[in-house]
């Protein structure tokens, strides 16, 4: 079996009565980019906090670089670069002080790489963090997260609320991390186009559970989106075999279904319809179908 950099098995966690993670399995191999998708509050950040040793596993196990991040934080955190949506940066520090401060924790800090990134982002080292715009804060946080060339880069909703330019900087940082000697990235995002572009593997979390996980190309092959035309109109979506979600109305329906499926074709035929067009589903279509956010969800599936 491939060596797993991150190995989470049967992890459960509740906050009070609320079950935030429910028997989660999550494995990331070296050199991969793993996208973590799910609605707000689905459990993505809770999972990431376990990887960083900020939360202790209530049940199940968490191993990062073959260490327990709670017991052995130094062995784990020194090899990780981390950027969170909140970007908890010390407000009172200047940019250059933040760099010096972060460098102190990381013996592998690459001073010239840090300087080069600051110049690319046109960040003034003498400015205080609290004087920076939202985008500039994200860039400063990004430099602090990648300048020690971490073996594992973890980004929690890095693009949230940022403009296109800064989002591009973040995607570039992901590409560089992977392209330069095969380091590993985990990033969570609700922007599915980013995940689709940047991920080799996708893990989908819904209500604390992993609902889908695997190589992006394999996942995509397992689902199809077909447009179906019926001879007669339907007020409610007809129940079709292997359909997950349907959109549309009247005679024309757009269906996300598992496939490629002969059952689906026959089921359409039985309802007096024909498949007009069929193609592999996009990540967004799979996500909406699996998360039950499509306008009409098919319970039978």
């Amino acid at each position: 079996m491939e060596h797993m950099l991150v190995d989470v098995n049967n992890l459960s966690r509740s906050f009070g009565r609320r079950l935030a993670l429910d028997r989660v399995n999550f494995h990331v191999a070296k050199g991969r980019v793993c996208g973590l998708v799910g609605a707000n509050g689905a459990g993505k950040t809770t999972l990431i906090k376990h990887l960083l040793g900020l939360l202790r596993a209530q049940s199940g196990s968490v191993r990062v670089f073959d260490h327990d991040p709670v017991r052995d934080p130094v062995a784990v955190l020194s090899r990780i670069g981390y950027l969170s949506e909140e970007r908890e940066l010390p407000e009172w520090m200047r940019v250059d002080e933040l760099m010096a401060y972060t460098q102190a924790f990381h013996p592998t800090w690459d001073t010239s790489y840090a300087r080069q990134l600051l110049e690319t982002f046109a960040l003034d080292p003498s400015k205080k963090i609290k004087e920076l715009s939202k985008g500039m804060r994200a860039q400063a946080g990004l430099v602090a997260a990648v300048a020690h060339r971490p073996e594992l880069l973890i980004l929690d909703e890095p693009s949230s609320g940022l403009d296109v330019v800064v989002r591009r900087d973040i995607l570039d940082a992901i590409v560089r991390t992977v392209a330069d000697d095969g380091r590993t990235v985990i990033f969570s995002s609700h922007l599915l186009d980013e995940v689709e572009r940047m991920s080799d593997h996708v893990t989908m979390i819904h209500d604390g559970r992993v609902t889908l996980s695997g190589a992006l190309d394999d996942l995509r092959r397992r689902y199809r989106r077909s447009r179906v035309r019926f001879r007669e109109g339907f007020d409610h979506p007809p129940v079709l075999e292997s359909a997950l979600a349907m959109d549309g109305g009247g005679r024309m329906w757009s269906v996300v279904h598992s496939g490629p499926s002969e059952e689906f074709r026959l089921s359409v035929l039985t309802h007096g319809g024909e498949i007009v067009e069929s193609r592999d589903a996009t990540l967004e279509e799979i996500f909406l179908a699996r998360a039950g956010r499509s306008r009409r969800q098919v319970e039978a599936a």
Partner: protein
Amino acid sequence: MDITISLSDGVPIYRQILNQIKYLMASGQLLPEEELPPIRTLALQLKVTPNTVVKAYDELESAGLIHKRRGAGTYVSDVTSPLAKRERQRIIEQRVDALLAEAHQLNFTADDILRVLRERLAAMPRLAAAAAKGER
């Protein structure tokens, strides 16, 4: 290299890269022994994970369309013309298939399509002249 990624049509990204490189080769926009951009460069340009570019290049390499030189990048192979011809044939067939599917949707027969094709060709003097020359 002129490649565009679309996320709306359900085609895997590595396949889009692969197809467009094949297209650039078939149409003579990429010439034999021309160097392809390094993986990192193309990944940064397209904003895709480098592993996706690796996958596209690997498949092109095993199809014999490109080759790596030790420590010196990736180059377009000097593919013999039958291969380029096959690829051109494949590209045009895909377009025709899409056209026929659309025509079926709009209740056009194959004869209708042929008629429209001739009319449109006649409306493009330069193409019509080239076609007439080819027939002779």
